[in-house]
């Protein structure tokens, strides 16, 4: 968002000296081929696809690949700059549930308003009211203001309204990430029901498991383009392969960095409890990440370094930042920090790491999917008991009295 003053001064500068602003902060790190001019780029470009009636399509892609933009265009929220979308039938988008809920109004009043926002008439809501309330499981509280609802109840009610829209084409974005397991099951069931009745569904998720469960085909987007459009399994495989190769490239040579570049991450290595270099780790073991930095320019800025960890499905798990533990980074021509995890509490699998260095709150060097590690099965509790696959993603130390 620009302010009037910024716009005016930019306009004045252009008029005055005809200079182009070459380094635009907001578009740094975007490939040249996607750029329109110095400050704009194509979020989506050269997209061409057809979805036949009744198909359930999964839409996947890394962050920033254009998924949300595509959904916004398909659901008419924003207009394409160029090209067109032809849609046969009525579209309803479930980009977020409970949109437009008013906290002061009762559940019942909100169901009506929300239904109307999503395109239902009052009569349609009337007909389905009982069903909606039953589905959400909030019949006892339907005359209570929404602000007294638990967040789970609000979400359930929101999804219930949306699920009873009865559109020809349903666009769903990550709703399944909310609610408890039972409700998620219910949602998946509802979506399968909708798809069986011959409706078309476009489903966006970072959760490959749920994409695999309900989609017959999938589209993989990368940098504003379709890379694959085919069977779900092969598209997911392609997507996961796409994400990983960047990591195998050594960090030194990465060019897709974002930030001022005053200090850059020069290398990363991993050590086990004996201080030996390793490329894998085990659940429950000591694990440490050493990050080497190189100063390109001397600064006096306050430095913070973060490692964020995502699982192989792209879901962010956690972030380790130096300021969480009040560690102060001091700049030298080359320097290194070591982040130690005493007892790795991640389930076996592949994990992707982003490195992020900031100075005075501004990104200096940010690499998405900087590297990957594989966590092998290990004995977290020291009892030989392990958390089996599918029983969770993380382990928590605990005791029983």
């Amino acid at each position: 968002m620009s302010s009037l003053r910024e716009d005016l001064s930019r306009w004045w500068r252009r008029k005055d000296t005809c200079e182009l602003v070459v380094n635009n902060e907001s578009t740094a790190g975007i490939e040249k081929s996607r750029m329109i001019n110095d400050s704009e780029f194509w979020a989506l470009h050269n997209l061409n696809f057809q979805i036949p009636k009744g198909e359930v399509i999964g839409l996947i892609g890394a962050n920033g690949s254009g998924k949300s933009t595509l959904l916004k265009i398909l659901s008419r929220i924003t207009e394409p700059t160029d090209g067109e979308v032809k849609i046969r039938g009525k579209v309803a988008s479930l980009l977020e549930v409970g949109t437009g809920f008013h906290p002061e109004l009762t559940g019942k009043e909100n169901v009506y308003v929300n239904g109307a926002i999503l395109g239902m008439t009052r009569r349609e809501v009337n007909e389905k009211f009982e069903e909606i309330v039953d589905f959400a499981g909030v019949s006892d509280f339907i005359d209570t203001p929404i602000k007294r609802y638990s967040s789970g109840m609000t979400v359930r009610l929101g999804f219930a309204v949306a699920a009873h829209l009865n559109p020809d084409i349903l666009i769903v974005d990550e709703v399944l990430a909310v609610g408890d397991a039972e409700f998620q099951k219910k949602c998946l069931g509802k979506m399968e029901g909708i798809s069986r009745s011959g409706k078309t569904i476009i489903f966006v998720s970072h959760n490959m498991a749920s994409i695999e469960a309900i989609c017959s085909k999938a589209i993989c987007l990368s940098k504003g383009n379709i890379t694959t459009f085919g069977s779900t399994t092969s598209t997911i495989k392609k997507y996961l392969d796409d994400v990983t190769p960047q990591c195998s490239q050594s960090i030194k040579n990465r060019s897709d960095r974002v930030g001022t570049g005053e200090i850059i991450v020069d290398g990363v290595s991993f050590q086990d409890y004996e201080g030996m270099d390793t490329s894998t780790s085990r659940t429950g073991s000591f694990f440490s990440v050493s990050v080497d930095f190189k100063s390109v320019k001397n600064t006096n800025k306050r430095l913070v370094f973060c490692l964020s960890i995502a699982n192989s499905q792209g879901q962010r798990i956690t972030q380790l930042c130096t300021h969480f533990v009040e560690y102060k980074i001091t700049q030298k021509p080359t320097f290194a920090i070591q982040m130690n995890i005493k007892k790795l509490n991640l389930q076996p699998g592949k994990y992707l790491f982003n490195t992020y260095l900031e100075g005075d709150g501004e990104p200096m060097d940010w690499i998405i999917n900087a590297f990957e590690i594989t966590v092998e099965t290990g004995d977290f509790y020291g009892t030989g008991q392990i958390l089996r696959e599918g029983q969770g993603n993380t382990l928590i130390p605990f005791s029983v009295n």
Partner: protein
Amino acid sequence: MNNLQQNKITIFKPSAGWTGFDFVGIWQYRDLLYLLVRRDFLAQYKQTILGPAWFVLQPLFLTIVFTLIFGKFAQIPTEGLPPLLFYNSGLIIWSYFSSCFTGNASTFTANAAIYQKVYYPRLINPLANCISALFGFSLQALFFLGYFCLYKFFIPTEEFFTMTWAVLLLPLLIPLVAFLGLGMGLWMSVLTAKYRDFNQITGFLAQALMYATPIIYPLSEIPEQYRFWAYLNPMASVVETFRFALLGKGSFSAPHLIYSGILALCILLSGMYFFKRTEKRVVDYL
């Protein structure tokens, strides 16, 4: 939404220039319009003790403050009208204008969360605001009639006041106010969507306009040579006519009223045009 619409092909593509107004879309979403008006009404005074009485109490308190400050202390003449009736009549028509104007100035920013998630004709929100403000205005007008009768029949007063034929103009006058407020509100919402600076300007503009409008003073108090400038404010002749219709004082000038009407239409149409242009891409920079 209905059977007619099924299997209809909708095409979204970049629209250029004057794309026309989506009246069909608004008609399809008429239930939403109704529900939003109802929601505004219900939500405004939930968890209050006096509830909808505030619709009436608020202008009444303001009228009393005006009567004290401008009538008693500053001694601004009220054209020989009971001060309460004089200020109240000006205030209720003004507050209708003001809620159409300031209430819609933040349409895009206030509804950003919804606009980023769902499509419906965005004009529904400002329309709903104007309609629910009309309910407030009607309630206030009803109470004004109450005060009117109170003064007419129960409180002996030397001042003479009466309704005039111009009451017949009210069905035109009130839409004029709504159009003007809506039009200016749409303009402001478009500007605020792009530049938050206009958030500040809206409040200031509304206040400045209020002092430029003969609410706390009669237009006749303005010296002859400046009156032309006073009439440039489209609300000036509106308030004067409103007062003339209800109380028989003030002035009625057809040319000035027609000027206000034309100006209101121009502002409304241009506002709708820019609103429409903005709604297409606005989520990208909200």
